[in-house]
């Protein structure tokens, strides 16, 4: 059950920055993740700063360069249903549709989805783990069937976001605002692995807020897909997921952008597979080779070796379906 906290409904970003500058202040957008963490006592919540009323952070609009701007408070349900996304940025619409449940998607926001905290059961549960200031990552020798096979050390959670995987594959940029101004961060650079930072998962400073996401123009023949594998059809995070964005030209792949979810502490770009695909005609053999390339360098723990096969199979299946 949640401890009590102060509550501030910010009318503007400036108000929010100010309110966020005290210790124990937490940002609330949709609240689906924050309230769960507060209830489980994952971190102290002394003040809740709600930005849910800041209207300018909602909605999807065209950008002058032909790309799209998505406000960070846009609901996942709106993203899943948006015609401009389902047409040109299918991977993102599919990823948004794969999140949680209809209720979570109505309430959850895009900004919140990429900033949500890990779902590792040691982090969420009553365990003083490395990420919470303890001395061990319980997953290393513990129940690690859902944990990372890439980039884990020293903390082996997997990033829970579906949207972030699609956004990374789509080469999205994140607009971040704080008291001293705004900056743009490439999705690939937004996350920080546990090797660099153990207590947080991204580059945000405590009083910074993700305000919008920019998608680059989608020109020419582009195929984009998000495929998620989970234990259940809803209310589940990915055991493994693949976002693939292929730029096609005369039946050949001009460029490929391939990112994995559910297998690493952040969306895991598989550069070797992208290189392998670039300039080639997609066929069954190439899809299989890309699957193999995708898992080169995987370092499974005791119980998550199956994820290697799963990723290989999923990459191959996704590419074969595009053929």
């Amino acid at each position: 059950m949640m401890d009590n906290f102060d509550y501030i409904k910010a009318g503007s970003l400036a108000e929010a920055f100010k309110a966020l500058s005290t210790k124990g202040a937490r940002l609330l957008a949709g609240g689906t993740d924050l309230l769960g963490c507060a209830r489980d006592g994952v971190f102290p919540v002394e003040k809740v700063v709600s930005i849910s009323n800041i209207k300018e952070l909602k909605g999807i609009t065209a950008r002058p360069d032909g790309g799209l701007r998505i406000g960070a408070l846009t609901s996942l349900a709106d993203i899943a249903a948006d015609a401009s996304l389902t047409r040109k940025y299918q991977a993102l619409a599919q990823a948004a549709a794969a999140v949680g449940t209809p209720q979570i998607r109505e309430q959850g926001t895009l900004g919140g989805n990429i900033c949500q905290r890990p779902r590792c059961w040691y982090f969420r549960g009553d365990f003083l783990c490395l990420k919470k200031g303890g001395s061990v990552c319980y997953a290393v020798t513990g129940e690690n069937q859902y944990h990372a096979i890439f980039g884990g050390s020293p903390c082996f959670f997997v990033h829970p976001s579906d949207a972030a995987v699609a956004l990374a594959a789509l080469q999205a940029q994140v607009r971040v605002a704080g008291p001293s101004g705004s900056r743009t961060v490439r999705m690939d650079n937004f996350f920080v692995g546990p090797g660099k930072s153990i207590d947080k998962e991204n580059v945000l400073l405590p009083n910074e807020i993700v305000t919008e996401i920019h998608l680059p123009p989608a020109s020419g023949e582009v195929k984009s897909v998000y495929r998620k594998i989970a234990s259940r059809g809803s209310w589940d995070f990915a055991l493994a997921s693949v976002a693939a964005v292929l730029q096609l030209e005369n039946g050949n792949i001009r460029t490929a952008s391939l990112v994995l979810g559910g297998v690493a502490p952040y969306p895991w770009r598989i550069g070797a597979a992208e290189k392998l695909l670039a300039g080639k005609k997609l066929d069954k053999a190439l899809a299989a080779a890309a699957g193999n390339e995708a898992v080169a360098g995987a370092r499974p723990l005791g119980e998550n070796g199956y994820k290697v096969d799963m990723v290989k199979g999923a990459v191959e299946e996704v590419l074969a379906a595009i053929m």
Partner: protein
Amino acid sequence: MPEDPENKAGESNEGISRRGFLSSVSAGAVAAAALKGAPEAPAQEIHAGNKAVTINLSVNGSTRKILVEPRWTLLYVLRDAIGLTGTKIGCERGECGACTVLIDGKPRYSCLTLAVEAEGRAITTIEGLLEGDKLGPVQRAFAEEDALQCGFCTPGQIMAVEGLLRSNPNPTLDQIRIGVSGNLCRCGVYKNVFNAAAKASRLRVYKGGA
């Protein structure tokens, strides 16, 4: 109705009358349903801690002024402060769907919504789907298709379907399945829930509802 409507809590034959029950609830927790406008609820201060704030909540078309702690969920306020217990508590962490209500017409988990965040929004609960003493179309369809066993998840399922049909009056079977995929039913009556949702869609269309 062959069901016994009396003898609910507070009406034991040890002497608490229904009237007594209601008035004591309103003293303790703002059962303001019968009152017009937005009455104050001084007794509530006993319960709410020192961070308490007063909010106006619009529930099933009537607005209530309620003193709440910021941490109180909409679910808790609906049930224990207002007395609308049709919305159920299953997990209090957004994992079962029993607490589903409509907020501005969209299905959401009231256990993952702070009451303070629901201020200024239109909240609809299972009680709000009744048309006088008659069942609304979605409720009727659930009864007729036997889309329930223990019935505990049922109000949440019904609200999920109501929300789905408000945005999509003629859903396909797959859209229905996705629409109720945020509501667990341990009795496992999903097939009947799908049938009920399809029937509710027809009943609503017949009524000209959307």
